[in-house]
């Protein structure tokens, strides 16, 4: 019975590793300049965690195979150095693994998230609120008007709380329910939550960042492939969370200018 159990562990461990090794469920093609770093990091993590997982399962199976079915008089062996040595060895091993992932992950995370965008990046503000995203472009003056949360008026589509009557900078701001960006141009995304925590996730862009109420979070990225992609909220934000999405259109420079003109005319 114990030998059957040991074999079952081996079979389950190998069966769960097969789809990962065979790349059965692959991420959609990356469309960003930084995405390959994320993919490499994911792949390194999967290899490291996968090898550890398989090793642990195989060792477990060997021990079950070897030491089961022993008589009641069999002597119990102890780990050299006792339990203390075992715990320290495990901490060092796991600690080194996590530290290594963190060190190698710096290039995929800190170098992308913690560096300022270039001066020519196109600023776009995204506001997340239950349960929709809205996007604001600065208009021809290249300046965003200030926000007045008390003026937020959804019936009138004033989702950001703009005051065009008094703020000249707000008059040419363009607010849209979909996000369009020019291809191969760096985007500086200024993230703002209206109510609770949300998240901005575009699989193809390899961008997933939480909105935190009260914090101005920003990130920057460059999309390299024209197309239509889905932006979804991946932070459970309430009743309508399942329906909180918008579309990202990566357009050629000319198409983007046309889109911006069309949106400006609808303000």
């Amino acid at each position, binding site marked *: 019975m114990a030998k059957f159990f040991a074999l079952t562990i081996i079979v389950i461990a190998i069966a769960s590793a097969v789809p990962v090794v065979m790349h059965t469920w692959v991420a959609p093609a990356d469309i960003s300049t930084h995405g390959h770093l994320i993919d490499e990091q994911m792949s390194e993590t999967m290899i490291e965690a996968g090898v550890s997982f398989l090793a642990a399962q195989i060792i477990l199976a060997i021990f079950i195979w070897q030491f089961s079915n022993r008589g009641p008089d069999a002597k119990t062996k102890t780990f050299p150095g006792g339990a203390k040595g075992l715990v320290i060895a495990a901490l060092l091993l796991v600690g080194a693994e996590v530290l290594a992932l963190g060190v190698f992950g710096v290039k995929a995370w800190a170098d992308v998230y913690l560096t300022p965008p270039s001066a020519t990046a196109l600023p776009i503000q995204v506001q997340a609120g239950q349960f*929709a995203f809205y996007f604001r472009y600065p208009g021809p003056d290249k300046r965003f008007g200030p926000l007045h949360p008390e003026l937020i008026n959804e*019936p*009138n*589509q004033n989702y950001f709380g703009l005051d065009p009557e008094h703020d000249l900078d707000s008059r040419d701001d363009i607010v849209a329910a979909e996000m369009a960006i020019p291809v191969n141009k760096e985007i500086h995304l200024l993230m703002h939550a209206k109510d609770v925590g949300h998240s901005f996730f575009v699989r193809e862009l390899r961008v997933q960042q939480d909105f935190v109420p009260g914090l101005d979070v920003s990130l920057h990225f460059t999309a390299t492939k024209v197309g239509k992609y889905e932006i979804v909220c991946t932070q459970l934000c309430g009743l*309508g969370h399942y*329906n909180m*999405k918008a579309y990202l259109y990566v357009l050629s420079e000319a198409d983007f200018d046309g889109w911006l003109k069309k949106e400006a005319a*609808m303000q």
Partner: protein
Amino acid sequence: MKTKPGYAAVLAVLAASTIAFAGPSGGSISGKVTYEGTPARQKPIDMSKEPGCAAQHATPITTETVVVGPGNALVNVVVYISAGAPDESTPPAQAVTIVQKGCQYLPHVVPMVVNQELKVVNDDANSHNIHPLAKINNEWNKSQPPGTPPFSEKFGKPEFIPVKCNIHPWMHSSFAVLKNSHYAVSGGDGGFTLPNLPPGKYTVTAWHESYGDQTQDVTISGNETKTISFVFKAKPY
């Protein structure tokens, strides 16, 4: 010819009741609601996150915070008797209905009498969550997945209640819970009529969701029709 006193009494009662019946259909107040100035531009609504709704509108619908008609007509103004008519303790038996269709509330303004049945219908193939932001009445919100039967609610106190959908931020309506059924909503030409008013002194109030309210005192004698008008000041922002 000798008339029996009994007959005379019956005739008198009949005559009086005829007058009494004539009373409610007698006086009326009608008129027009207009605006002066420049009203805020109504913006097209982007429903791309709910494709099933977007597909129902050949051209995008616009916001409805200020709906106007030809000749400076102001539409969706609730005109009602705010004083002078008795409160109706028994609400009308007929329910009022609000329909969610194409991610829009139809009608945009829903007047009703205190305790009158309000029927909420979801005509869309997606969920809605109707949320009247009541301050005097109890606030509630109810989810209505597609295909679920209509449900009924009522409000026990007079109040103007903004209504939103918790799933679709652009959806907006107003409930006007009134003390009596002497009300009208100004139509496409800004016109309204309050019929069936017995003689008396009335205060007529006109309420608009963006421009607030105005009142006028009107005295009705006999079967006359009084004409009044309301003019609201429109602002571009």
